[in-house]
């Protein structure tokens, strides 16, 4: 029988209806005490992950995702059900929430100074995110940065870090104690694993931070750290390209992002050594002011 679970993920909450042990176990590994059986809590969105029915479900079982009675995606291989739910949660937020300008980007902070890392897949963003989160930085977001309109304040939306392909082995070596989900094999992003950020990030789940930098990372094998200052027009246009709800928020998003870009440092970096990156970020951006 399927049960209702509640996930409290500031600033949004979800109820998840599922009977799949795989989904329940992964949610419990990743979200810890923030994941529980739903009792009287009221969730913002009702999600559900189910096994699809029919003869095919015996030969090649599939998982279906629903958000408030809607089924936005075609079913996926059953084995990917948990990853599917994570993407479904992203979809739900991206499609409904417009109280923040939402950027496809990681956000990490030292104290209350935050840096935005918008980057396409393959840029090594998530490995960098995982590394920083385990080395004295606080994770605010891995994929969805929530900026409060007309400020440079970021609202945390702490979620697991999504690692792909080769970075899975690297991460398992780097963080032997990390809380990892099962691997979802052969997704459109390749093999995917979710890693729960350290407890300190969860504890600060409701504390906002102020943006001081925007850094576009690019992983290059055997490349010593190279840093380029990005001019503001280019940096702005790249942020626009990475914004989920920019086209909905229009003027609000435009003025918010121009304000952010005007008031932060903007860099593009090419790197191999994560230690070097961390040192650069601290010296040149965090300690700069």
């Amino acid at each position: 029988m399927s049960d209702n679970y509640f996930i409290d993920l500031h600033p949004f909450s979800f109820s998840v209806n599922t009977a799949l042990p795989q989904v329940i176990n992964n949610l419990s590994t990743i979200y810890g005490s923030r994941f529980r059986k739903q009792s009287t809590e009221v969730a913002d969105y009702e999600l559900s992950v189910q096994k699809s029915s029919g003869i095919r479900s015996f030969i090649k079982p599939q998982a279906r995702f629903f958000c408030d009675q809607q089924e936005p995606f075609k079913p996926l291989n059953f084995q990917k059900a948990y990853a599917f739910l994570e993407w479904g949660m992203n979809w739900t937020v991206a499609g409904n929430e417009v109280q923040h300008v939402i950027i496809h980007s990681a956000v990490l902070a030292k104290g209350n100074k935050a840096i935005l890392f918008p980057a396409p897949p393959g840029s090594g963003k998530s490995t960098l995110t995982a590394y920083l989160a385990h080395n004295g930085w606080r994770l605010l977001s891995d994929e969805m940065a929530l900026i409060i309109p007309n400020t440079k304040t970021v609202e945390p939306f702490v979620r697991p870090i999504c690692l792909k392909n080769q970075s899975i082995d690297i991460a398992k070596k780097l963080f032997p104690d990390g809380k990892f989900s099962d691997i979802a094999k052969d997704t459109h992003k390749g093999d995917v694993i979710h890693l729960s950020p350290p407890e300190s990030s969860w504890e600060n789940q409701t504390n906002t931070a102020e943006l001081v930098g925007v850094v576009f990372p690019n992983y290059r094998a055997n490349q010593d750290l190279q840093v380029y200052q990005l001019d503001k027009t280019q940096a702005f246009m790249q942020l626009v390209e990475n914004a989920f709800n920019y086209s909905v928020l229009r003027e609000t998003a435009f003025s918010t992002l121009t304000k952010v870009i005007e008031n932060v440092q903007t860099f593009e970096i090419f790197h191999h050594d994560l230690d070097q990156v961390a040192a650069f970020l601290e010296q040149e951006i965090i300690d700069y002011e």
Partner: protein
Amino acid sequence: MHSFSDQSGCVFLDIHSGETLSILMSESEISKVLSGNTVLDKETSRNIAIQSLIQKNILVPIDSKKI
């Protein structure tokens, strides 16, 4: 429109279509072109960008004969 303080360029929001456009010219450079004081080489990407902003009625030439 927003003109960035590092003079790297200006960005525009087309309120009608919701489209965002950028041009790598400072505000003062743009107004020189619009007033006809600077003539851009027709082939350059800057000229193409300015022409497309004019077409979308986002920029308006100050003296239309010269542009």
